């Protein structure tokens, strides 16, 4: 329990942890830890950001977290916010040594946020921005009514993940249209391959100079397929009020903030777990922890890294990957593992005999965390050795005699890697693009699902259509692939139809 004197102890612990982290060359954002009661932890855990706008989905998660907590089923240990300075929250009910471990873990995260490439472009003041957005939304609730705002928020949130993470800002609509128009007219000029020397060729200029009125096609909007559904709809939907456009932009901004975290979840949690393990071991070696504390932190750690029969525990998998990278570069492999590397003609490094700090393993761990996201991390560094160390397999589900059986299908590391990498395309979300904002010449929205072998869950698509219609205000089309065939669904505000 956090009493004034235990607060002092935690401060002391933080100092010790930080000293050790620095010793190991961690370089995090300034990190502000706050001790909070469970209800607040669940509130922030449910919204993802302190002071975020209200929504019933947050209320639902809050309710679930509170209930699980009250039944002793699970406890969120940490919430860390990617900002500068970074924010982290500690449960006041935790034992001191648990919070100490969490502080070490958090410093791994904030080091990751500072150095991983995918976080470079995210704004670092999001807690502040989110609070301002929340205030504006509360204002809209006041002005326009709680129901209309909630209905619109529901609709905006239903497509929140379909943004373009590589395009942080959008041009205002007029500027975007002008830019497209310029590109389009360039593209409409006849291509003879020489451009400025056209007039020297045989064909008379009068025939080919420019395009005649009849041949001129209206410029498609968008000019190229747009992945940013939220942003595009915000800018180009025909009937939106200003407050509605604002809500879409808020949702887009917060979605962009969460996006890199989704993409690097395994690396990030693995990295933080890897470091809290090293830091706490050092705390123990230095005599800062008594025996009871040592047992407690190891119990907590073990609980966190429990592997799962079905699915991936990011803490376990990520940590084991970094362990492997460290062992590999410090020449700390088993003989069988080395033999496999030889067979695959992969380099084997000599056994490193010095201190961990400054070792090749230490250096490579910190280097590799900078450049990858989960998908490239696995593609580049996962191989037979970590697969075997973790006892991994690909499983399949079969229906047999009224039961659903799950069986081990393959322990081959290449198949495991392939399965993992494939599931991470576009962060696991379907890749949707807007191809036409004026389909059928009546301002219908046409969205194409870029099918890559995974079909859409049609029942959910059905339920999302009304939300798309709420946003766009005109008929909406979604083209996808079902059972190998191209299918187009459409919704006109009343019912869903299917063609092709």
């Amino acid at each position, binding site marked *: 329990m956090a009493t004034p004197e235990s607060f002092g102890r935690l401060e002391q612990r*933080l100092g010790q942890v*930080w000293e050790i982290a620095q010793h190991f060359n961690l370089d995090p954002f300034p990190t502000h830890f706050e001790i909070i009661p469970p*209800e607040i932890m669940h509130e922030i855990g*449910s919204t993802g950001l302190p002071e975020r706008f209200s929504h019933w*989905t947050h209320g639902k998660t809050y309710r679930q977290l509170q209930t699980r907590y009250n039944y002793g089923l699970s406890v969120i240990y940490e919430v860390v916010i990617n900002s500068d300075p970074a924010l982290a929250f500690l449960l006041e009910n935790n034992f001191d040594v648990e919070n100490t471990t969490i502080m070490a873990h958090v410093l791994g995260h904030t080091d990751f946020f500072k150095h991983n490439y995918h976080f470079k472009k995210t704004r670092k003041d999001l807690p502040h921005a989110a609070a301002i957005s929340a205030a504006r939304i509360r204002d809209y609730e006041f002005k326009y009514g709680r129901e209309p705002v909630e209905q619109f928020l529901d609709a905006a949130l239903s497509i929140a993940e379909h943004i373009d993470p590589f395009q942080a800002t959008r041009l205002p609509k007029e500027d975007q249209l002008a830019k497209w128009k310029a590109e389009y007219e360039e593209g409409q000029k006849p291509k003879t391959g020489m451009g400025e020397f056209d007039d020297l060729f045989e064909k008379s200029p009068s025939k080919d100079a420019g395009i005649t009125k009849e041949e001129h096609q209206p410029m498609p909007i968008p000019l190229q397929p747009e992945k940013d559904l939220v942003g595009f709809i915000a800018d180009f939907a025909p009937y939106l009020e200003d407050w509605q456009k604002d809500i879409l932009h808020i949702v887009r901004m917060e979605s962009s903030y969460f996006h890199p975290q989704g993409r690097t979840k395994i690396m990030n949690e693995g990295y933080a777990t890897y470091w809290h393990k090293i830091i706490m071991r050092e705390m123990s070696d230095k005599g800062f922890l008594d025996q009871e504390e040592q047992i407690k932190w190891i119990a907590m750690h073990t609980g966190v890294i429990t592997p799962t029969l079905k699915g991936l525990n990011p803490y376990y998998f990520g940590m084991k990957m970094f362990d492997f990278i460290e062992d590999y570069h410090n020449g700390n492999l088993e003989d069988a593992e080395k033999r496999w590397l030889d067979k695959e003609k992969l380099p084997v490094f000599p056994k490193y005999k010095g201190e961990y700090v400054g070792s090749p393993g230490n250096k490579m761990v910190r280097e590799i965390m900078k450049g990858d996201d989960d998908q490239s991390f696995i593609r580049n560094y996962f191989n037979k050795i970590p697969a075997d160390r973790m006892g991994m397999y690909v499983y399949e589900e079969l229906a047999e005699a009224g039961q659903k059986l*799950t069986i081990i299908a393959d322990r081959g590391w290449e198949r495991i890697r392939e399965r993992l990498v494939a599931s991470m395309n576009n962060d696991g979300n379907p890749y949707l693009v807007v191809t036409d904002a004026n389909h059928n010449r009546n301002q219908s929205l046409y969205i194409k699902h870029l099918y890559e072998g995974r079909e859409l869950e049609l*029942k*959910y698509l059905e339920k999302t259509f009304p939300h798309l219609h709420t946003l766009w205000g005109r008929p909406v089309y*979604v083209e996808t692939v079902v059972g190998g065939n191209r299918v187009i669904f459409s919704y006109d505000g009343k019912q869903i139809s299917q063609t092709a």
Partner: protein
Amino acid sequence: MPYIEQRVFISREDYSLRRSGPKNAARHDEKVKDAIKGNLDQIIFDGAIITADPKSKKRVRIPLRSLILPHIIHKESKDGVGSGPGDVGDVISTEPGQGSGQGAGQTPGQETYETEILLEDLQALVFADLGLPFLKPKQHQQLETDTILFDDVRAKKTPGNLDIFRTLTENMKRNAIEGGEARIFGIRPEDYRVRTWRNEVRQENAAAVIFKRDFSGSMGPVETYLVQAFGWWTVAFLRSKYPKVETAFIVHDTQAYEVSESDYFRRNDGGGTTCSSAYVLEREIIDKRFSPDRYNVYSLHFSDGDNWNNDDQKCVGLVREMLGLGVAQVGFIQVASSSNSSLRTALTAGIQHDRFAAIVVPDKKAVLPGLKAYFNAQKQFAA
């Protein structure tokens, strides 16, 4: 050291006034309630609810798919990765049900949100719209119920119920009398004012409900289930809103038998069908125990309408007599299949009376509308 120069920093703020978490949760609870209300006709026939003892403090689970915010997502795949021991081909888990293909009416693997609600609260939602029609005060028997009204303010100290406003008011009054100035000062036990309750005896109009159920061979499991559902909700509704109401239960095939409540719901032997036998027995019960000048009598007959050939007109005659006697409302509830059965046709043709209700319950969804049709408290005698 100033905060900005320190790389790591720990603090503790006061969160006692933060209410966003509960506020969001309250908004969600509201939506849950709306969703339940909107889905009542589907929820109320859930098997777990029907068999539950209404007096128990049981919480029932209700699936509410409408409270998942939809997204455009991939279909769940039938494979994945995991960690653990075993050889290729070993089974690592077994679950009942179909494979990861589309299960009927449910999206597999995706969250099916369930909520729990106290049976009492669920019933309250259902009963909100139900009431006894054509209810009249009856001369002879006045029944009594104890109602608890929390509206009395006395000078007794029970700290939890301290009425602060009145206490302070008393204090100011006393200070004005004693010290010449009406101010809040020196609160003493004699100032305490406490909210408490008194028992009020309320008059309830005497009522009796007679259930008649066709349990002949033609009543299959589907029909029987609908009768049970309707009957269960009727009994629960009566017990909740009209606790002193009297009941009688009749089952019939070619003969009619008066049975206990639990037997009414369970018996299933059934031979041929002679509906008039039930009406005759009912009339005997009315004559002996529930005279319409002393009771508001409600008659309900559940059947699939399949009746012995020449019996229909006899039933019509018996119903006419009951209405003539002053029975408050007679209802014929045909379960399963909305086609016109012989008895229903005969009854609707033979009886044009606003206190006769012919209701069809072809499927589960029609149970709640059926209840509302019979227990329509809007229908009362013209003043």
